[in-house]
Structures are given as structure tokens and as C-alpha cells.
């Protein structure tokens, strides 16, 4: 599921507000995990009643228990979703849940598979010029929007154009693709974008100025209808689009029927969908907060995601009629160092902080085994993942040795000192389970090393604001869903990472900069794999963050629904066209 960290955090905060009894039923797709690698002994889930859950889809054991309400429903699929906000335009929403809503309505030219590799959707195929700067997308023949109007290269060109408009305030950053003439258009120096050429209704050619491996998926995004969204368009004025946010029109598997604020979004199967009309006529996203499990229990809802823990898994298993899906999230969590602090300039100190922290224990206690220690800034689900780096297994002796080498000697009170400065670090985190577990363990771990660890829990926005100012020494975060491996590392670039959300507050490594550039400068996945492997090794040696973990995502759907395979990058949207109800 596409969702923003802030929402995860707020869901978690609300969850804590309602105390555990309720938060265990929270619909947060907030991830969590069982350890995938058998090498870690400590990963057994806390509750013994939970039967073994495999990664992937664990089929329902007893469909006869299906509640009447669910059994009766033959032409409607109902999925749960935390509060969508009503901006149903893929390029304008600011609420990740609206992204889930729009992805059923709008189809993109290029999508990604379960490992993050591009796959064709509305574009039958694409060519990239030998210099990797020009992309030619070949659209499938006879594409139509859900109102029956044709979808052509003009619509693709229009979509890309408004993303360059100077009043565009959405979160898609089209400038990452550096389309030729894009800046000029934004600044009002040109009436059209030079790099966008409609060859014929089925072919569009886009010329970029810089090779970027992320451009393909970005350029091949969802398509807006020019006839519908472009009627009143004048450069420099996108105000009029607001009135259309609540009346979306796209070429996705489903068309929009109705939105009832705070309650549900209704869809109808789109007979003009390129891959054929979906078999299930009605689809509904029902707004859920704390009651997802209840709706599954009463049979009113077919699918929802849950916080991963043994309680939830056990309850779902007891139902018997649900397929339980468990998969690793594409996000990772981390503790960032403030690299502008003198003691973190020495990489041996940073290494010591990693060796000296029992990450396995923290994850096991927080996620009851449904999480795996992270050592690279990319999830195991991605094609770029590798385990060929220093695993930094918990090793306080090694940590002490590194601190000694770096010149931090234990002082009279047991706290290490160097040049008259004591090794006291301040750590900021948000309220929540992870912080509650991490703080006491880290305090103890670091005390053993002779480091005084001062922790403070605060509101997510406060953590953000204070780390941006560089107040912290350490602070915890989690990334959003990451599709391209570059998304997980771009903050480490000297050009980017001074501050900001994913920033590092001053991490600088010339080799990393070089590899980051290299990683984006080819579209060949095999070449990129090798580059990222080198990059991860370098990052492991000169760590910008303490990588913490990859959590798992737990969801469940009733066994009557066939063909639903949640994907760590796109959630259920990829499966939507092929769902059947038996």
C-alpha cells in the first residue's frame, strides 16, 4: 500500500491512544515481520499458539466457516482502507490512501512487478535510445478511458505537461526525469515542452537531458485524459482541476462511482479496460480505523491489512476462512547519525554504535519476530537486495575496541571521553512500540560500551523539525515504500543530504557519490545490480545510518476471493483486474 510515513505514525499514535486492546485491530498496513533468514535463532514468534506462517499467501483452512454476509456476496469485492481524503487524482493527492483509491481508476503505461522491475501496462513496449536519453513508448492499440473516449499519446503528453506547470503542487517530481525543455516551460519561457513529441496517436517520444534509471517508471506513469482534465488548461493555472478531484476519469480496471466521505468509495468494473472488463462488477474501499477485524469477522468486508503481531495472526487463523498474506515491506527503518557532530566524523565510532546495539533483540521484542535486521538500505523484496555486506552482528567487544582505536577512552565515571568531551548522545524518536523497546535496550547496550544514551520521545513532526535543525545526535525514522533502489540511498549523496526528511546532516563520501551517480546512469538492471552491490559495501564500511530492520506486512482476505496477490510495491491494485469470486 502506498502510504506516507506520517500516516503510519499517526495511526500508530492513535493506536497507542486507544491502548493495545484496540490497536491490535488497527487497519494500519503498518508493516511487521517474521524473520525470513533461518540464521537468526532468536526469531521465534512470542506466542506459541501461532502456527507457522509462511511468506506469501497462506490459504484458508475451512471455507465452510465463511460468514453468511460474505458467502452471499457474489459480485462485490470490499477492501478496507484507512481514511481516504477525496483527492482522487494520481498526481495531486497528499494523502497516501488517496493513492490507493486512484490506482484502481487510473492505469499507468509502465508498472512494477513484485521485485520492483518495470512491466508493460498501457504501453505495449518501449524503446530506449542507445544513449539512454530518449524513450519511445508504444501504446497498445484501441486504448480507451472508462467513458469510452480514446486514450492516445496526446493524453500522455498532456499529463507530462501539467506536471511541469509552475502552479502544480502535487508530490510527483517530474524534474527527476529532466525532460528537455521542462525548466523552460515551468519558467514560462516556452509554450510547449521541447522534449515531448507525439509521433502518432499510439507513439510518444520523450527526450531527456540526463540518464536516470528512475525516469522510465516516472515517465510511464498514470495517464490523465486531455479531453477531460485539459479542457480549461492555461499554463500557470491549475486551480480549475480542484473541481475534478472528486470526479475522476481514468483508464484503470475500475471506474469511479461514488465517494461517501468517511465511509466508502464505490467503483464499477470498467468495460473499456485494456485487458478486458474485470469479472467482479463492484468494488468498494470501505473506510476502516480500528474495526477491520470486526468487519472481516462479520463477513462485511473481504480484505484488510493488519498490524503484524502474533495476536492478529492467531485471530485470523482461528477464523479459518481467510487467506493470510504475509510479505516483506519494501521500506526499511533506520536510526540516522547526525554527521555534523564531531564524534560521528570518525567512521569507527559509527561502526561501534552499530556493533554495540542489539538490533535483533530490539526487533524481536518490538515485532515479535516479524521483522528482519537490515544491513543494506533496500528491502529483501527488491532485485537490488544483497546480503554480501558486513552483517554487524551484535558484538560489544568489537565495539569497545573500535571506540578505543578512535581515541575514546573510559573516563573516571565510566563514560568515554576524548579531548575533554564526554560521549553523551541524544536520541529522538516518536512515541510507539519501537521507541518503547529500543530506548531501554539501547541505553543498556551503550552503557556497557561507556556511552551515555539520552532518549526523548516526541511527536513525529517535532522529531522531524528538530532533526532538520540538527539538534539531534541520533534519530529514528522509517522510509516510505521504495520502488527503485535509488529511493533508499539518494539521501547519502553529498549534493542532497544536508538536511530534510531523509537527510543525513552532513554525510559525505566521494565514493558513495560516484556510485550513486553510476547507479542511476544506466537502465541495465544487471549493471545496476553490480553497482548497488558495491555501493552497499561502501555504505556498510562507512555507515550513514544504523540500518534497523525490514518489517512484514500482514493482510487477509476471505478464501472466496481468488487471484488476489498483494504486492510489496503496489498493494492490491495490481491484482484488481484479475480477481474472481467463487
Amino acid at each position, binding site marked *: 500500500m502506498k502510504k*506516507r510515513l*506520517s500516516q503510519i*505514525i*499517526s495511526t500508530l*499514535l*492513535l493506536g497507542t491512544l*486507544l*491502548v493495545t*486492546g*484496540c490497536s491490535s485491530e488497527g487497519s494500519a498496513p503498518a508493516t511487521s515481520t517474521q524473520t525470513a533468514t533461518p540464521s537468526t535463532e532468536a526469531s521465534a514468534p512470542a506466542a506459541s499458539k501461532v502456527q507457522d506462517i509462511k511468506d506469501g499467501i497462506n490459504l484458508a483452512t475451512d471455507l465452510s466457516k465463511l460468514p453468511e454476509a460474505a458467502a452471499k456476496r457474489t459480485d*462485490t469485492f*470490499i477492501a478496507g482502507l484507512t*481514511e481516504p*481524503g*477525496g*483527492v482522487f487524482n494520481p498526481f*495531486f493527492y*497528499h*494523502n497516501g490512501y488517496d493513492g490507493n483509491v486512484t490506482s484502481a481508476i487510473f492505469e499507468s503505461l509502465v508498472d512494477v512487478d513484485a521485485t520492483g522491475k518495470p512491466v508493460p501496462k498501457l504501453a505495449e513496449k518501449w524503446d530506449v535510445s542507445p544513449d539512454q536519453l530518449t524513450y519511445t513508448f508504444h501504446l497498445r492499440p484501441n486504448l480507451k478511458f472508462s467513458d469510452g473516449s480514446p486514450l492516445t499519446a496526446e493524453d500522455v503528453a498532456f499529463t507530462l505537461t501539467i506536471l511541469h506547470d509552475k502552479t502544480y*503542487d502535487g*508530490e510527483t*517530481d517530474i524534474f527527476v526525469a529532466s525532460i528537455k525543455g521542462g525548466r523552460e516551460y515551468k519558467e514560462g519561457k516556452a509554450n510547449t515542452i521541447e522534449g515531448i513529441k507525439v509521433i502518432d496517436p499510439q507513439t510518444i517520444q520523450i527526450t531527456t537531458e540526463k540518464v536516470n534509471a528512475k525516469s522510465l517508471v516516472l515517465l510511464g506513469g498514470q495517464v490523465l485524459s486531455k479531453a477531460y482534465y485539459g479542457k480549461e488548461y492555461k499554463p500557470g493555472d491549475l486551480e480549475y482541476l*480542484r473541481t475534478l*478531484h*472528486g470526479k475522476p476519469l481514468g483508464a484503470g480496471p475500475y471506474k469511479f462511482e461514488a465517494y*461517501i*466521505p*468517511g*465511509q*466508502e468509495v*464505490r467503483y464499477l468494473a470498467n468495460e473499456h479496460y485494456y485487458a478486458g472488463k474485470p469479472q467482479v462488477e463492484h468494488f*468498494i474501499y*470501505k*473506510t*476502516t*480505523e*480500528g*474495526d477491520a477485524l*470486526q*468487519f472481516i*469477522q*462479520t463477513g*462485511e*468486508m473481504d480484505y484488510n491489512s493488519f498490524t503484524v503481531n502474533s495476536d492478529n495472526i492467531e485471530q485470523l487463523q482461528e477464523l479459518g476462512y481467510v487467506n493470510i498474506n504475509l510479505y516483506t515491506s519494501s521500506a526499511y527503518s533506520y536510526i540516522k547519525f547526525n554527521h555534523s557532530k564531531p564524534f560521528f566524523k570518525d567512521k569507527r565510532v559509527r561502526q561501534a554504535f552499530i556493533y554495540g546495539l542489539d538490533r535483533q533483540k530490539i526487533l524481536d521484542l518490538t515485532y515479535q519476530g516479524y521483522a528482519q535486521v537490515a544491513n543494506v538500505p533496500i528491502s529483501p523484496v527488491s532485485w537490488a537486495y544483497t546480503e554480501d555486506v558486513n552483517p554487524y552482528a551484535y558484538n560489544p567487544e568489537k565495539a569497545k575496541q573500535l571506540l578505543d582505536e578512535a581515541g575514546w577512552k573510559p573516563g573516571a565515571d565510566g563514560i568515554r571521553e576524548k579531548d575533554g568531551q564526554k560521549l553523551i548522545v541524544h536520541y529522538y524518536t516518536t512515541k510507539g512500540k519501537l521507541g518503547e523497546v529500543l530506548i531501554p535496550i539501547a541505553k543498556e547496550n551503550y552503557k556497557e560500551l561507556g556511552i551515555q544514551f539520552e532518549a526523548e520521545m516526541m*511527536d*513525529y*513532526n*517535532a522529531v*522531524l*523539525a528538530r532533526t*532538520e535543525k540538527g539538534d539531534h545526535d541520533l534519530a529514528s525514522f522509517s*522510509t*516510505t515504500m521504495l520502488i527503485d533502489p535509488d529511493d533508499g540511498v539518494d539521501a547519502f549523496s553529498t549534493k*542532497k543530504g*544536508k*538536511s*530534510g*526528511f*531523509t*537527510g543525513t546532516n552532513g554525510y559525505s563520501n566521494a565514493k558513495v557519490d560516484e556510485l550513486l551517480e553510476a547507479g542511476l546512469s544506466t537502465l541495465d538492471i544487471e549493471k545496476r545490480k553490480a553497482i548497488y552491490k558495491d555501493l552497499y559495501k561502501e555504505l556498510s564500511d562507512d555507515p550513514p545510518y544504523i540500518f534497523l530492520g525490514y518489517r512484514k506486512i500482514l493482510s487477509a482476505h476471505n478464501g472466496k476471493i481468488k487471484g488476489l496477490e498483494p504486492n510489496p510495491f503496489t498493494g492490491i491494485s495490481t491484482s484488481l483486474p484479475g480477481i474472481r469470486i467463487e
Partner: protein
Amino acid sequence: MTSYFLKRVFYMALTLFGASILIFFLYALTPGDFVDTSPKLTAERKLELKAMYGLDKPVVERYFIWMKNAIQGDFGYSLQYQQPVMSLLNDYIWNSFLLAITSTFFTWVIAISIGVLSAARQHSWFDALVTIGVFAAMSLPVFFVGLLFIKLFAVDAKLFPAGGMMMIGSKETGLAYAWDVVQHMFLPVTVLTLLSVGTLTRYFRTNMLEVIQQDFVRTARAKGLKEKVVLHKHALRNALLPAITLLGFELPALFGGAIITEKIFNWPGVGQLYMQAFSVRDYPLLMGFTMFLAILTVIGNLSADLLYRVADPRVRLK
């Protein structure tokens, strides 16, 4: 009276002005703004967006821009929902109101009846039972009762829906729709009523007890009036007088939304909207809504004072 009214309106405006300053600066000074909370944006893009939303201007200037628009009835666009704040509130606030007004109605009816009865029979077993019951109801947390009710009445007994405001995908209209909503209201209204009836019962009981001991009640009794008439006509009327003030204070609460209850029962109310807006620092929505509540509070106060004067002519307002 007129001059009193005018004076009050003037003070109201002054109060609201103060409230608006407080509200605005409280939100403006909370760390992080809407753009900052978005993790995907580059630093450069963030600056552009801040400029677009006017978040880069000095706080004081932002206040005056907001103030100027607000006076003209324009509370701006919600950043997250991209809709005018007022129309957005309109989508949610009436759902909260429906829940609140129903439970308030039941709370008052029940609290008054129990309060009067238990005061009339002070020290009886009924009074003792009520006192215990009231304390029990007051000490239970709402999420506990809510979840228990859902488990008992919705999931196990299947008597009522587990949550929401209507059956999922329902296309009923008219009476059938109303009936659907009533069914969905049953559990949340029961929980809200149960939990708020306690305080109010104690309030009425104490008021009644006080009034009953007064001379005019004794006089009424001495005149040989029936106990029923004494209680309901003489005592109750006087005991209810202070309740008018209370009712005035309830006005903002009717629209404020019961955040936890709405969340547990998945009720599409304004409480959830507010929490969501707060987590992403959607200032226009937050300020618009808080200001709306401030206005209601002031109006509630004023109408309580005016009503009090009507109800009890001894009160002279100056």
C-alpha cells in the same frame, strides 16, 4: 437589555479575536508544517511548495492574511483534502452532530429522571444502587466499553452492525436508509450515553437535594401539596435552572466529535478528520475547525446567559 446584549456581543468579538490569535500561533508554532511532513519531497521542491501555500511568510503576516479571509467567511482550502474547509467540515460535522445530539438527549432524560428519583429517595437502596452504578459508569474507559459492546452485540450476537454509519455498499434511500443509520447508531449512542450519564446524574441529584431542603419546598409540602407536585413543579424547576448554563456549554461539544468513540465505531465524524488534519499539520482545516468551535462556545455562553435571565427573572444582567 439591549445595551447588555450589545456589550456582550462586543466582548464576544473581543474574545474571538483573542482566541484566534491563540489558535493561530499555537498551530503556527507547533513544530513542522504541512510540507515538512511529506517525506518524498526534495528540499528544493519543499521551498517551492511552501511559497505556493504561503507557508514561507512570517507568522504574523500569515495571521493577518488568514484573519482577513476568515472575516470574509473564507477559511481557505484544506491542504490535504484540496477542498474548501467549510465544505469539508460540512461533510463530516453533521454525522458527529447526529451522534452527539441523540446521546445528549438520552443522557439528559435519563440523568434527570434518575437524579430526581434518587434525590427524592435519598438513603434508600435505589439511591445507593444509583450512586454505585454512576461511579461504575464513570470509571470505565470508553474504548473498553466500546470494544466490549462490539464483541458482545455485533460480532457474537450479531444484533447490531460492528461499525460505520450504513451497510457497506448500501443504496437504500428514505426511510430504509434512516433505519439503517438508526441501527448503526445504537451501539455508539449507548456507549456515549452510558459514559456521560454518570456525571450529570450526580449533578442533578445534588441540585435536587439542595433545593428540596429549602424553605419554599417545605412550605409547599406544608400547604398539603402532593409530593409529586412538590417534586416536579416546585423542586425540579428550580433544580434545573443551573442546567441551562450547562446546556450552553454543551453546544460546542455537539459539533466537536467524540474522537475515540467515533474511531472505535468507525463513525464518519469530524473527530477523525481533526486528528488526521493534526498529524499532517493541515493548518487551514485545523484553524477553521478550532475557530468554529470557539465561535460556538461563545454563542453557547451568551445564549445560556440570556436564557437564564428568561428562566429566572431574579437574575439581573448588567
